[in-house]
Every structure is written in structure tokens, then in C-alpha cells.
């Protein structure tokens, strides 16, 4: 639980609560005016209590509004002005209510007409303040006469005819960044509504620097790790897809962040055409071509998930399970030497985790080929440690099918040099440690490492 969230939560109530004073105060004006007709004169008595309700709800709206303003980066001037007018409404409605109370109304008598005019003025200020508030949430151009004359953008007929910024990049940004960086909301001082404002950027500098990815804060933020505090979109809002990111990357890096240019007029478009087609709903999702140059190549056969119960069970039995990577789920299993844990008591769990196991250490556990017949199921194994076990050349038959196996530690075992020959030329094994065995003499080096 975080108290920050409570004030945010209350702040989010502002748009709801704010409609109460609007309703009450409007009702007070309406009652006040129609009470001039003799038929409705009795309503005049209700104005006072309605004003009180309007005043109380306006005070709450102000408090919640204050919390809301603190939770987001709204346009500074707009939010200040909205706050002042809101407070003014609360104060004025309070004063007007007070003037209806007998101890006060007995002392200064406000003429009924003045009271009515003040009430009407209050309504006017309320309309003004309400418009500002709407501008903050929906953008200042939300309620705009131009909407009547604005033309919908015609979707481009083909990828070649699409404008890279207007048809492709801008819609991505509007859908993924718009809720915080558009209209009256400019978190971090950034607005994405036009190219100009992207180049200008926000508090941390320009969002987009043409041709320079590393200086482009926007690109940096959307490509951070999702767990990073600075990652955008923040607060768990839907992130950009890898295709969208690739388009923005291309637009900044290769297309120099242009606007008003069609795809067909740009260079090096081959790579992104498929992605653009998909984003314009003109084509199928292309295969993810860019594997991310920074990521380390990982064997695609390793399952992305892992049986957690099997891991826990192995740990309870004394096996050390080290998670090497979470996605895909890569494991390093160590059967501690000298603990007397029998391999066959683990076969259930090992069966479930075999494909996730990338490193396996069974050193010094008095194992022979017979117990090790589970090895072929460890199809993604890269490193295998079997040193100080009474295994002989038969071990090579068990591992020869492991097509990702890179190194085997067989030092101080009973292997011989004819065993090594079983590793055919197609084997993936690059290093065999055979120090202290009959095979070490074929290795020139005193360390006994057979290297290919």
C-alpha cells in the first residue's frame, strides 16, 4: 500500500465530484429566477439550502482537484487559472449562502436583484472554469468549432503513398503517448501533438533528434526495460509493439524525423515496409526481423516457461537450482558432491526440467553411464560437468545427440582416447576436459583440455 496512491485516487475523484457543485449551483440560480413568478415563489426558500450543498461540494471538488493537479503535469497556466476560478466559485457560493442566514441578512440586506445577478455571474464563472477543466482533460482544442469543418484524413491506399509521419508515426504516438502528452496534459513538459513539439521536447531535452537515436529521449525511454522507472509508456499503460518501436527507430535514424514525406520518396524503406503495412492494416504482421542487436543470442528451443513446482521440489531435495535467465527459462543444476543424493530419486523433476537445463553439474557423485541414461533428454544442454565420476567411454554415446553441447568436463574419469573419437566431426562439442584420464595424452597441452 502506498499513500501516494490514495491521494492520487482521491484526485481522480475530482472529475466526478466537480459535477455536484455544477448541478447544485445551477439549480440555485434556476430556483432563484423562477421564484420571481408568483406561482413558484415558494422555491425561494430552497435556494439557501441548495447554496449550502453547492458550497460544500465545491470545497470537496477544490480539494480533490488540488490533489489531481499534483499528480500530473498539466499545462501550468491552464491549471493555475482553473484552480483560481474553482476556489473563487467555492468562496462566492459560500458568501452567497452566508448572506441568506438570518444573523447576517438582518445586518446587511442584499437586494434580491443584486443577489440574483451575483448568482448568474457565478454560473458564468462556473461555465468558464468548467471549460478550462475540460481543456485540461480532453485538450484545449477538444471543443472547437473547427471540428465542424475538419476533414478526416483519408487512409493511404498503399504503403508507398503513406506519409511516414502523418499516417504512420503520428497515429502510433497519439494512441500510445497521447493520454499523457497531448492537449492540456504535458507530463514532463512534453507534448506529442506535432513534430515541432517533439523536436522541442520536454524537461529532459529534445524527444526526437533527427538522425541521432542515442540523443532522442523518446526512443531511449520506449526502449528501456519495462521495469525501469523511466520506461514509457509509464504506469503499465500499453507499451509500443516491437514493430512500432522499429518504425519510430527507422523514422528517427534513417528518415531524419521528416514530416510531409511519402514512403516512396524515402531511402532504405525495404526493412520497414512490412511493418508500416501492418500498422496501416494493409498487411499481415511481418516476422520480427530485428532480434535486438544487444541481446545475447539464445537457443530458441529452450522453453519460455519452467515448472516452478519441480524447481522447488529439487531444491528441497538438496539440488542447487540457479536460474540463469527467466525468459527463456534457463537453468543451471548442481547436484552437490558428497551429499549422497541419488540421481534416480530426482528423475521426475529432472524430466520436467530437462529442456530448461542449460548447464548441468553432476561432478563427484559416483555416477556411471547406467544412472546417466537420462542425459539424452537434456536436449538444450550447453555445459556438462561429470568430473570425478566412474564413467568410461560409453558416456560419449549418451551425449553425442546433444546438439547444443559445448563443453564436457570428464577430468578424473575412466575415459580413454578412443572415447574422444566418438565425437564425430559434426558434434557441437568444442571442449572436453580430460585431465587425469587416459585421453589426456592426445591433448598436447598439460592442462588436458581437448579443444576444437
Amino acid at each position: 500500500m502506498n499513500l501516494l496512491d490514495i491521494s492520487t485516487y482521491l484526485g481522480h475523484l475530482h472529475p466526478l465530484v466537480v459535477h455536484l457543485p455544477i448541478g447544485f449551483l445551477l439549480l440555485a440560480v434556476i430556483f432563484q429566477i423562477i421564484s420571481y413568478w408568483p406561482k413558484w415563489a415558494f422555491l425561494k426558500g430552497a435556494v439557501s439550502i441548495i447554496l449550502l450543498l453547492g458550497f460544500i461540494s465545491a470545497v470537496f471538488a477544490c480539494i480533490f482537484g488540488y490533489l489531481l493537479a499534483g499528480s500530473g503535469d498539466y499545462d501550468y497556466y491552464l491549471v493555475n487559472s482553473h484552480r483560481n476560478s474553482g476556489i473563487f466559485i467555492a468562496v462566492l457560493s459560500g458568501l452567497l449562502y452566508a448572506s441568506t442566514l438570518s444573523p447576517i441578512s438582518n445586518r446587511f440586506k442584499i437586494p434580491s436583484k443584486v443577489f440574483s445577478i451575483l448568482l448568474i455571474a457565478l454560473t458564468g464563472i462556473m461555465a468558464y472554469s468548467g471549460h478550462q477543466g475540460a481543456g485540461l482533460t480532453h485538450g484545449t482544442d477538444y471543443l472547437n468549432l473547427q471540428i465542424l469543418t475538419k476533414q478526416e484524413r483519408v487512409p493511404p491506399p498503399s504503403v508507398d503513398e503513406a506519409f511516414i509521419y502523418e499516417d504512420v508515426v503520428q497515429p502510433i504516438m497519439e494512441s500510445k503517448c497521447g493520454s499523457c502528452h497531448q492537449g492540456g496534459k504535458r507530463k514532463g513538459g512534453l507534448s506529442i501533438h506535432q513534430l515541432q513539439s517533439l523536436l522541442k521536447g520536454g524537461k529532459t531535452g529534445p524527444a526526437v533528434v533527427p538522425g541521432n537515436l542515442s540523443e532522442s529521449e523518446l526512443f531511449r525511454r520506449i526502449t528501456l526495460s519495462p521495469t525501469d522507472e523511466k520506461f514509457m509508456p509509464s504506469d503499465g499503460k500499453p507499451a509500443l509493439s516491437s514493430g512500432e518501436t522499429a518504425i519510430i527507430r527507422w523514422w528517427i535514424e534513417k528518415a531524419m524525423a521528416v514530416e510531409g514525406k511519402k514512403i516512396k520518396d524515402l531511402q532504405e524503406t525495404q526493412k520497414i515496409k512490412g511493418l508500416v503495412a501492418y500498422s496501416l492494416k494493409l498487411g499481415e504482421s511481418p516476422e520480427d526481423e530485428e532480434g535486438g542487436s544487444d541481446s545475447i543470442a539464445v537457443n530458441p528451443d529452450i522453453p519460455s516457461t519452467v515448472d516452478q513446482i519441480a524447481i522447488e521440489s529439487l531444491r528441497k531435495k538438496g539440488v542447487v537450482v540457479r536460474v540463469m535467465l527467466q525468459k527463456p527459462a534457463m537453468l543451471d543444476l548442481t547436484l552437490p558432491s558428497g551429499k549422497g543424493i541419488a540421481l534416480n530419486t530426482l528423475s521426475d523433476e529432472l524430466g520436467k526440467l530437462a529442456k530448461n537445463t542449460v548447464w548441468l553439474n553432476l561432478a563427484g557423485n559416483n555416477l556411471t553411464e547406467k544412472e546417466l541414461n537420462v542425459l539424452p533428454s537434456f536436449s538444450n544442454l550447453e555445459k556438462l560437468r561429470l568430473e570425478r565420476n566412474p564413467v568410461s567411454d560409453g558416456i560419449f554415446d549418451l551425449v553425442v545427440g546433444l546438439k547444443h553441447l559445448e563443453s564436457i568436463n570428464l577430468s578424473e574419469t575412466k575415459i580413454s582416447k578412443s572415447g574422444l573419437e566418438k565425437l564425430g566431426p559434426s558434434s557441437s562439442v568444442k571442449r572436453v576436459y580430460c585431465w587425469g584420464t587416459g585421453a589426456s595424452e592426445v591433448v598436447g597441452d598439460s592442462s588436458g583440455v581437448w579443444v576444437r
Partner: protein
Amino acid sequence: MSHHHDDEFRIYSKEFEDLHKKWDRRQFLTQTTLGLGALALGGLFGKNIPGASPAAMGSLEQDILAALPHFAPKAKRVVYLFMSGGPSQFETFDYKPKLIELAGQNLPDSVRKGQRLTGMSANQSSLPIAPSFYKFNQHGKSQTWVSELLPHTASVVDDLCVVKSIYTEAINHDPAITFFQTGSQLPGRPSIGSWISYGLGTDNENLPSFIVLISKNAQKDQPLYSRLWGNGFLPSQHQGVQFRTGKDPVLFLNNPEGYDGTDRKEMLEYLSKLNTLQNDGYGDPEVVARIAQYEMAYRMQTSVPEVMDIKDEPDEVFELYGKDSRDPGTYAANCLLARKLLEKDVKFIQLYHQGWDQHGSLPSGIAQQCKTTDQATAAFIKDLKRRGLLEDTLVIWGGEFGRTVYTQGKYIADNYGRDHHPRCFTMWMAGAGVKAGFNYGETDDFSYNIVRNPVHVHDFQATLLHLMGIDHERLTFKFQGRKFRLTDVEGHLVKDILA
């Protein structure tokens, strides 16, 4: 409203209580906008907010730890052979033949470029160039230049990745060594080993994941402080545990005299119960750390004597490491011990050998240093290699800075000294994930400035973490209002040296 009884306003909630205990004043003030009012509301709303639980309190730390490792690690363990004092690059790895003809001449200003010198040599009337008194030869398939002082290291040079372009920011021992170990020149940050222990935990619950060994057979001219392997602001169980020589390898581990220890486990269980009560009452994370340390100490009562016992090592091993290796606490014996600890999957071993600070009489001083360490260092590499441990262990060798091309004091061909030099020096790495038989970086003819591929201390640290599967930018810990990491706000992965 005064007729209401006070009790009606009391809010009882478990979350409220936990919150009260686990927040300090600063957190409280920074994270509440409404102060007490919001706290009371927090109690009211707490139960209804999804995900609200005491566990969410440390959620920043939990999120960071849950994301680890960030990449598939190449290295599972690290051994850092720290040559404290600043070994000269001129008499070890950075071969500078052009200096021979310049011997005794003043160092050109065009090389020094107005760099500030230390108080020890700034007042010298001249800065005479001192070439290495020792000869160099190329070794191995990699044809790496190694001085005649390091014949054993020369024999394993094809397993090393020699980086000749390390540079640091500090010019004196304490800030420089603190910088290397913690990423900051000022004391107080966690050591590399502590970060790794904190981030990756342990692979052997019977031994600490971060162990420190210090050679006894070295001249202790520059001191080492335990804060160099301190946990800083990380939880205390991640501090390095120093293994000493003699009867008590780890202090305060043995049972007191006259106590047979048979009911020690029972005693510790009661103590743990008491500590748990204390933790429930105050929620101080250090209580949890204390419980963990007591339990670790108990397990270490059996695991430490077992790992320190070298009786079963064959003679051939002692011959490999040199005769010192039979004498516990020497550099050679510590190397052998480090191998035994690696076999037990201890994650980070920090080994220190002091005495590399040759301001005067460098030729004889450094020869002695090399003689004490060379054979054992090379033996360590050979031993790890044949046992297959180099496959997933990263070995690092280096000091806190380099030494100057000019002599401190008078230049005599066989008797000169060198002052501290932060702008370039040599380190090497070997094993998991780094290129073997590889030379990286280049210095100018005076080994004064770097001309190619500079590697900053933070770059080295970023690379070390990367090999362990950690993105140095993402392993952070929030302390006093800001997130800290080993590489502070700098550091770039040195991709060129990765295998």
C-alpha cells in the same frame, strides 16, 4: 462531536501497523502529501486497494531483484586478485622499448600535458624517464609481451585477456582502491562482491557468497580497510567475510573454550525466535540480516574447517603453486584456497596482495613482488583450466592505478622509483566470457596516455557485472532518496573483449 468516545475513531489494520513500523520519518514525509490524514485514510482504504499488502513496501527492491539475471551469464563465479599498491605496468606487461634511448631525459611536456602530479614528485626539478630495468619477450600463440619477472604468467598468457588501457580518476591509494571496489572514491558504497551477492544470492548456503583473503607474506605499506569489502547500504549479510590464517580462519566462529557446542543449534533456534519477535515488533531489516548471519555462522562451523583443510591435496598441487602454498595465509596458499572455494561455488572471492607501491628501489621491490606471486597466479590459472573451472569462472588481476614513466627521485638504471599514475595501466582477465590470448588497448610510447580503446574503471565494473548476467544500469538500490548502482551514472560494457 465531543460526545463520541475516542475508541470509535481507532482504526485497526495490520497493514497500518506494518506501515507504521517499517517507514522511517523521511519516507513518511516524502511519500505522503496529506501527512497524518492520509495515513488514517490509508488504514481505512488499505484493505480494499488491490495489491495492498505489507510485502508491497519493499516492492522497488523486489522488482529489481525479480528481474535478475538480465542476460544469460557467462560467468558463475569471480576471483579478483587485487594487487594493492599499484603495480608498475612498465616492468610487467606494457613493453615500451623506445624508452631505452630516452633513459634519464626529462619527460616532454607534450606528453604530460600539464597533468597535476602528486605531492611526492611535483617538486622534482626534472622528471627523468626510466625505462624498464627488466627485459621483455613475446610469449604464446598470442605473442603477448611479458617481462622476465613473470615467467610463469608468461606460460599461461594464451589464457589471458590483457587490457593495457585501464584508467582511473584517483591518484592516491585509498580513493583509488575504494573507487575500484565500490565505484566511488568516497567510502560508504557497497563493494562489487556485495552487489553480486545482493543481486544473485548464493549457490552454496553453507558458505558466504563473498569471501575475502589477504596475503600475509606481503609488505603492508598501504593499508586495507574492511570497508573495501563492506556492504555499504545493502543488507549486512552481503558484506565480504574475511578468512584469516591461523587457528580461527573466521573470527568468532569457533565455540568458546570449555563449551562443547552440542546444544548450540538449540540455542540458536531460541535466539532466532527472539530475533523474530523483535523483527515483528520493530521491522528493522537489520534484524533479519542478523538472523541470517547467525544461521550462516552455524553452518560455517562445519563448512569452513572442511574447505580450509588442505591435507588431501596431492604433492603435485603444492609443487604447482610453489612451496609457499603449504604455508597458510601466503599468496600461494590463498590462491589454492580460492580454488577450493570456487569448487564449492562461492560466488565472489576477493584476494588482496599488498606491497606494489614502489616509489623507490623499484627494480628490487617489484622483483620481490613478482617472485612471491607469479608462480601461484599462473598455477591458479592452470589449475582452474584443467579442472574445467575456467569455463565458468572469471579471474581478474590488477591494481588500483599504474605508475609513472619518470622516476621519483634520481634515475639510476638499476635503482629508480615510480610515482602513482592514474591515466593508464594494465590489468588482465581470464576465463568465462572473455577472449583468451587477447590484448586490448594501447598506450603511447611513454605509457603515459592511452591512444586506443580506453577502459574506465566503471567500464571494467560494467563488464564484470555483464559477465555475471547483470545489466549494471539495472541493479540499483534506493538509499537516502536516490537510486545507487555500482557504476554510479557511468560505465559502458567493453564488448570488444567479450568472447
